[in-house]
């Protein structure tokens, strides 16, 4: 049996293609039979992905979801940042440049609102749960932005490692919530046109969450949301350890 494991992990990426295809096949079937296409197949597939990631984590105790199981290690490549960003960029083909130009400014404004508001909100939650030092409050506020901004900020201001771990978890909760929640609330917030998708990407940020959420809502909107969201993490890494840290420092030691 050992040689099967070796074969699968040696051909990890190809095996990941196969398994992902099977997941999507099952998801499409469930979408048709159980929900009459009301919940799109891609939303169910992404949710199934999160479920197997959970079980991967429970079985191995690792941090990489299903990829911690040797046979499924190819998922780390297929689901890694390289393929994610490469495929996101490819969706730009056919993007309407006039929409991008028209909504560009609103997109930039929503980026700033998104980062600052999210940070302050996360900071207030940290304060109300008993954190009193500026470093921890800032790091948790940054974690509320994305799971990259949290640890980058934490390292920059010198927060303790357990607070950094919380900030990563906070960013993950956000990403998962956005992934699952976007298709459910899309109609209510009129997230059905490119302009709103750009504003949505700027306000919410977390690239993986936005990308997955929009994919499940309407794949045509993905490039618009991703275009603004891609600046969110950078802006967060810029503002959180500097201006926003100083702001928190005014009130807390």
């Amino acid at each position, binding site marked *: 049996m050992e040689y099967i494991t070796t074969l699968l992990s040696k051909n990890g990426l190809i095996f990941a*293609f196969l398994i992902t*295809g099977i997941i999507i096949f099952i998801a499409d079937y469930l979408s048709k039979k159980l929900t009459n296409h009301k919940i799109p197949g*891609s939303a169910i*597939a*992404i949710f199934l*992905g*999160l479920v197997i*990631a*959970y079980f991967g*984590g*429970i079985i191995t*105790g690792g*941090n*990489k*979801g299903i990829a911690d199981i040797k046979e499924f290690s190819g998922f780390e490549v*297929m*689901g890694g940042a390289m*393929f994610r*960003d*490469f*495929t996101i*960029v*490819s*969706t*730009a*083909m056919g*993007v309407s440049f006039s929409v991008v130009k028209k*909504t560009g400014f609103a997109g930039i404004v929503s980026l700033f609102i998104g980062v600052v508001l*999210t940070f302050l*909100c996360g900071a207030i*939650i*940290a304060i109300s*749960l008993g954190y009193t030092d500026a470093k921890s409050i800032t790091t*948790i506020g940054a*974690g509320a932005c994305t799971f990259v*901004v949290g640890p980058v900020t934490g390292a*920059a201001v010198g927060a303790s490692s357990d607070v950094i*771990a*919380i900030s*990563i978890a*906070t960013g*993950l909760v956000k*990403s*998962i919530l*956005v*992934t699952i929640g976007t298709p459910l609330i899309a109609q209510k917030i009129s997230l059905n046109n490119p302009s*709103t998708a750009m*504003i949505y990407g700027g306000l919410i940020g977390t690239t993986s969450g936005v990308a*997955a959420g929009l*994919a499940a809502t309407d794949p045509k909107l*993905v490039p618009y949301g*991703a*275009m*603004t969201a*891609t*600046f969110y*993490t*950078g802006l967060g*890494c*810029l503002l959180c350890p500097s201006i926003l840290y100083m702001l928190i420092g005014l009130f807390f030691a």
Partner: protein
Amino acid sequence: MLIKGVALLAGCYILGQLLGETLGKLLHVDANVGGVGFAMILLIFSQNWLEKQGKFNPEMESGIMYWSKMYIPVIVAMSAVQNVRIALSSGVIALLAGVIPVVICISLIPLVSKLAKNNLQ
């Protein structure tokens, strides 16, 4: 040829990421600032330019389309490698700080898009 489209996409990707990394370095931020966004803009421009030159053929387009269609499978694979276990087991603070700001930001979306629309008219 198909590979020409893939190569165009790859070139835009690398150049965009390089711009993002460089911008991050210049701003003293330990992150890539907008690499994907720059790459997308490059791809839009170069596609337009090639079309005007009459050098953008359908086969090139299908080289890029393939990856654009692989997008959702990649996202499914991405969700399968998330650290869901930690996210669900890190306690109240991660849950609250992960959920509440998102709810507030989402509730702002209709307002901001309305303001954006009014400003344009």
